[in-house]
């Protein structure tokens, strides 16, 4: 499944959405969801084996650099590519 997270840290529902993930799933952080990359917070909720990525434009627009995260930063084009492979969504 592809889990789309758009709200930032401390949003209770986003935490719970991420906990639905299982190995092989992808969590895509968009908008303020990119804040979950800070201090690797996302990994506290995403089980091992879950792919994590964030929209690059949303991350950079919030004042961060590519080097501020070890997770993959993706373009909108790559987001569609993910959905071409895994069509079930939680949004």
């Amino acid at each position: 499944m592809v889990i789309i997270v758009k709200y930032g840290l401390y949003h209770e529902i986003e935490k719970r959405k991420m906990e639905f993930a299982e190995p092989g799933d992808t969590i895509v952080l968009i908008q303020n969801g990119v804040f979950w990359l800070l201090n690797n917070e996302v990994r506290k909720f995403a089980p091992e084996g879950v792919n994590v990525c964030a929209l690059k434009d949303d991350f950079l627009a919030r004042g961060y650099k590519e080097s501020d995260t070890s997770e993959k930063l993706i373009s909108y084009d790559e987001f569609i590519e993910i959905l071409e492979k895994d069509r079930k969504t939680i949004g």
Partner: protein
Amino acid sequence: MKKVLFVAYQAPVGAIWVNETFRTAFGMYGEDIEPAVLLMDEAVTAIAERNAPERVGLLPVKIVKKYIEKYGTPVYAVKEDLEKFHVKDIDAGCKAQIISEADVKKIVRDCDFVIFM
């Protein structure tokens, strides 16, 4: 047949999303879709016996009950959230199935699309 779960998480008094979640789920019956509704977090207060948005002039939630009955739409409410928000007297007319957080995950993962409203 597509399985679609519509999820409300905001309180029914103060925001329209519980009403919209039910309205959208009921709207799916014209197609080959199996909709269900999940109430989580503050939205579980929607099934409290005395919950009444109309007391402050808002659209009532209870109007959805006759459609739940008509369509047999599965309605789930999360046990841990009912406890968190001290919901004890549940309106039986909402026909909600009380499920644990662990069961929520099973339901979610069984769906094609999960739509948080």
